[in-house]
């Protein structure tokens, strides 16, 4: 049970940090910020990788679900970061 309490603690701290992190953001950065944080939410890719284990208990389904999750999350991560970078690089060149 202790580990759950610890993780909940981490969760709550992260929530407060998240609330404080974004305060005065100029409006032109709203879209890149949304897109960039969207890429971060693709962190679920780590969960997907861990779901694709070698078969032990005969759960073929779990593996395939993990693979589907992995592909989708990777699209989210790679596409998200690249699109954000493309948007931001447009502000840069002047």
């Amino acid at each position, binding site marked *: 049970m202790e580990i759950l309490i610890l993780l909940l603690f981490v969760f709550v701290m992260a929530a407060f940090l998240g609330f404080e992190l974004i305060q005065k953001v100029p409006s032109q950065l709203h879209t890149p910020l949304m897109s960039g944080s969207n890429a971060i939410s693709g962190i679920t890719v780590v969960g997907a990788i861990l779901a694709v284990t070698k078969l032990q208990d005969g759960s073929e389904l779990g593996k395939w679900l993990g693979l589907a999750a992995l592909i989708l999350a990777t699209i989210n991560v790679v596409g998200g*970061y690249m699109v954000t970078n493309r948007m931001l690089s447009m502000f840069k060149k002047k």
Partner: protein
Amino acid sequence: MDTIINIAYIVASVLFIVGMKQLGSAETAVRGNLISSLGMLLAVVVTLFAADLDLGFIFGGLLIGGVIGFIWAKKVQMTGMPELVAFFNGFGGLSSLLVGWAEFAKNPTFTLTEGVEGSPTFTAFAVVFAILIGGITFTGSMIAYLKLSGKMSGSAIVFPRQKIVNGLVFIGLIIVGALFIATPSAPLLGVIIVLSLLIGVLGVIPIGGGDMPVVISFLNSFSGIAASAAGFVILNNVLIVAGCLVGASGLILTIIMCKAMNRTLGNVLFGGFGAASGGKEVEGEMKALTPEDAYYVLEAAQSVVFVPGYGMAVAQAQHVVKEFGEILEENGCEVRHAIHPVAGRMPGHMNVLLAEADVPYEQLCEMDDVNDMIEMVDVAIVIGANDVVNPAALEDEDSPIYGMPIINVHKARSVFVLKRGAGKGFSGLLNTLFFRENCRMIYGDAKETITKIVAQFKG
């Protein structure tokens, strides 16, 4: 090895935090995005060293997803950016749903493996939560994508007793969810998945297309929470931290966006704003102007303000707008671009487009700065913007957008509105600006209209 992986996760979390912080400021944004992506790379690479992984499958999955994401991100037009973010966001949500489902498929009773602390009941709860939030994120984002891309009507879809139906579906889900937590079983899980997907659809269809940016931002926050819930399913700290950061900061961003429209999040999500009616009837008539006549006015203008909106994006007019601005400057005229915080389909959408066209950064002005000097402006040129310049927001208390801050172009000496036809705005409201004494309508495609005026200057 587990210790090393966990330490790497801590480093990755720090990189996410620093990256996100830097994304919030113009000078450091590019670096911030890079730092955050390094965090992601680190998290992914160290995870590959975990025990019992089927690496062949994993590299296959990473490769397929990576290539698809790469191509999409490369090919998308800047105008299609909001839709793409909605799309990616939906994928993230679906992925979290699948991670929750996969955990159940592998271990249907959530029995604890030896040496791992935890609680089967808590895991079942986290699975339900990951599926619920992930499912809502997925279908909600897809509906938002369809509405933004025009594949689905932008107006609110309402049917009788909608709120009751939605409420019943939600209550049904809570009951089935509770049953599943008590005794996990595959049929119950199936019902949970279906109901979650259904809630995403039902929740977004009654919201008008004009509010989709807020919806996407809100669902972005949701996708973070879904990732965090998936983290609780597999007891993984980097998922919990990164997901929660996105969830919290996404919520703040959503609220900032709502404030720019002078509305509350609740009002956006449950107000049925897209079906806007009401507002006074307007007297007077709209007066049309030809591009040729517009040229004579502009030729003498000392100060011009462009107010771009979604129409500029649709017409892909940002490049001709830039050329137009240059010609006006050569003619001794002061040029500014006034950007409303919620112009376009996403906050900052117009900035991205104008930046793409190389419009000098100094010419981009925020709403308040422009409103302070609007009386001195000779001509305000509204390019495909509508609700953000509707004076009804200031004057008509019955108007649904009453109270929303607008760019006060009606106070400029004269206003030219470039517009396809005499129709209403995305919100379905009549714009009283168009009937003002100082306002002239130039009908037609914005790009063609501007090209014509530019040709006059050159000729």
